[in-house]
C-alpha cells in the first residue's frame, strides 16, 4: 500500500481525482485537526507524545535546496532521500535520539528550551487509500511557518511546505512519511534544533 504513495514525481495542482463530497470535507477536517494537535504537542514540548504520533517506519526528510538553472528544478533543485547529504534524512531511531537529547537538560542548543510556535495552513488531501469512504492511508500537503525564539533576542522563521503520509492505526492517525521543503538555500539559522 505504501509503495503506491512512494513517488518523487510532483503531483498535479489540486486533487482532481478526489471528489468534493461530504466524505472528502470530513476527512480534510479530521486531518486538519490532527495536524493542529500535532503542532500543539511540539509547541507544548510534549516531545515523547509527539514521537508516539510517528510510525516505527517513519521517514523524516528535509532536503537541501540548490540554486539551479531554469529547467533543472525537477531533477537537481532538491537533494534526494537515500542519497548524499540533506538537512534531515532520518528514521524513528534518530528522531528518538533527538528527543532524548533535549530531555537530558544539558543539550545547550535547546537549554533553556526555545519558544516555538508551529503554524500549519493550506492543508490539502492529495491521495487517499483505499477510498474516501474507508481512508487508511492518505497523502496530505500543507504550508508551515515555524517561529523560534531563543533565550532573549534570538529569533528564526522557518517557512516552507510539507508533504505527509498519514496512516490509520488502532491508535488513530500516525505519520509514516514527512518531507519538509524549507524555502531557503543557505540555511539562515545557526541550528535546526526544532522539529518540523
Amino acid at each position, binding site marked *: 500500500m505504501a509503495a503506491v504513495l512512494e513517488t518523487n514525481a510532483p503531483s498535479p495542482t489540486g486533487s482532481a481525482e478526489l471528489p468534493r463530497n461530504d466524505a472528502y470535507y470530513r476527512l480534510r477536517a479530521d486531518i486538519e485537526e490532527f495536524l493542529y494537535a500535532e503542532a500543539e504537542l511540539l509547541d507544548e514540548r510534549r516531545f515523547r507524545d509527539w514521537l508516539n504520533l510517528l510510525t516505527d517506519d517513519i521517514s523524516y526528510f528535509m532536503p537541501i535546496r540548490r540554486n539551479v538553472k531554469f529547467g533543472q528544478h525537477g531533477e537537481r533543485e532538491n537533494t534526494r532521500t537515500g542519497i548524499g547529504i540533506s538537512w534531515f534524512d532520518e528514521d524513528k531511531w*534518530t528522531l528518538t535520539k*533527538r528527543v532524548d537529547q533535549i530531555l537530558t537538560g*544539558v*543539550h545547550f542548543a535547546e537549554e533553556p528550551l526555545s519558544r516555538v510556535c508551529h503554524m500549519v495552513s493550506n492543508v490539502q488531501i492529495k491521495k487517499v487509500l483505499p477510498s474516501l469512504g474507508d481512508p487508511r492511508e492518505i497523502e496530505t500537503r500543507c504550508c508551515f511557518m515555524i517561529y523560534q525564539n531563543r533565550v532573549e533576542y534570538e529569533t528564526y522563521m522557518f517557512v516552507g511546505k510539507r508533504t505527509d503520509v498519514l496512516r490509520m492505526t488502532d491508535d488513530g492517525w500516525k505519520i509514516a512519511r514527512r518531507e519538509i521543503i524549507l524555502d531557503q538555500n*543557505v540555511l539562515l539559522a*545557526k541550528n*535546526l534544533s526544532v522539529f518540523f
Partner: protein
Amino acid sequence: MPPNSRFDDPDKLVDTDRGFVSREIFVDPDLYKEELEKVFTRAWLFIGHESLIPKPGDFYTTRMGEESVILCRDKQGIVHAFLNSCRHRGMKVCRYESGNTSLFTCPYHSWTYTTDGKLQGVPHFRTLYEGLDREANSLVSVAKLAIYKGTIWATWDKDAPDFITYLGDAKIHLDQALDCRDGRSGGSEVVGVHKWIFPANWKFAAENFLGDTYHNPSHRSVDLIGIGPSAAAGKKGRRDDELEKAQHVWISFPEGHGVHSAIQPEENEYIESFLDNPVLEQYFRHCFEERKRRLGEQARLLPFVGTIFPNTSYHGRQPRGLCAWHPHSPTSTEGWRFFLVDADAPQEAKDYLRRYYMRYSGPAGMTEQDDMENWLYATAASMGTVARRYPFNYQQSLGAWTKDHALGGTVSLQITEEIARGYYARWKSYLRGAAWDELLGVGGNLPQRAAE
C-alpha cells in the same frame, strides 16, 4: 594597521607569552576589515574538491573571504578559479551553485566569459568598443591554485609559497583526512555540502577545530544518549572507541596550523567501532589491516581534528569532512562543510557514513548544534564596552610543550591552548603585513622535520 586605527599595535591584542587575546579581534569591524585585507587575500584558502567538477565545463560556485568565486574546469580539463563578478559593472556572472556550461553570461549587459575566465562576447563590440583588450578584461583569476589529493585550494597572493610549503608539517595530518581508509593516497569524494549562517566570529569555529579538546563538556548531552556507530548496540558517547588506547598529541605548526592527532600504541590492533552494522565492522576492519600493511609503523598516526590557517578545518575520521569558515561580518560566519567518503567504498558504507555525518554535524547535527550555541553567545557577550576591556584567557598548559618531537612543530601531550596561542601569534604576523618568511615561521621558529 591604518594610521588612525585604535589598534596600532597588534601586540596589545595578542599576548601569547602571557596567554591573553583581546576580545576586540572577535567583534571589532575595523579589525575584521584588516583581516579580509591581510589574511584572506594572502593565505591559501580551501575552495572545493575535484569530485564536484569532474567533467570539462563543470563549475561550482565557491567563496574566498566574503567574495563569490567560480571554480571551473575548462574545456581542456584545467581547473580555474575566478572572482564571480563581471569586469564591466560587477554583476555576478554565475548565480547557480553548480552545473556545466560553455559560457558564463552576465545577466546585466551580456558580456560573456569562457570556462577559463576569458572575456569572449561583448555586445556591439565593433561599434562601441574599438580596441577593447579582451585579455585584460577577463574574470579576475586567483594568483595561485593547487589541487591536493582531490581538494582544491587558492590564494590571491602571487608571492605566496606553493601549497605544500604552506602546509608544512601539518601535511601528514591533513593527509590522514584525505587518504583512503585503507591507506591508499587520496581517493576521496564529496557526498554533500552543508551551508549555513551563524552569528559568531569566524575564528571561534576555526579555533574549535584547532584542537580545543577542552570544550568536551558542551557535548555532554550526546555523550549521555549515545549517537555513535555503536550506539544502537548500547555504547554511549558520540563517536567510537577507536582512539581509546592512543597517545593524543596537540601540535602547533609555525604556519599557524594546528592539529589534534593520536598515536596508536605499538601493538596497533583494530578496535571494534561499528557494532551497529556487521558489514561496516568487517569493512573497516579490513581497511585497518590494509592500512597497517601499507603504512607499517606510520599507520599508528591517526587524525582527529585540525585547522589549516586561517579558516579550513577538518575532521579526519568520524564524521570525516572539511569545513570552510567564510567570514560575513565580524559577528557572522557562513559555514560550509564538505563531507567526504572514499570514492570506491561499498555503497552500504557510504550510506551508513552519510547518515552518521548528518546526525552528528552541522546545524542539524546533534553534536555541533551545541558548538554553534557556544560560538554565538561567546561572540555576543564579548561585544560590550566593559567586556572588551577584559581579554580572553589563553593560559591553558602554558609552557607544557616540546619542540623535540618526531612530528615536528610544537607538540603537547596534554590538552592545551598552545595551538590557539600559535594560531593567534601567526594571525598577528598577517595583520602586521609580515613577509612570507615570517608567516611560515622560517628563522627562529623552524619546524623540525618528521623523522618517519
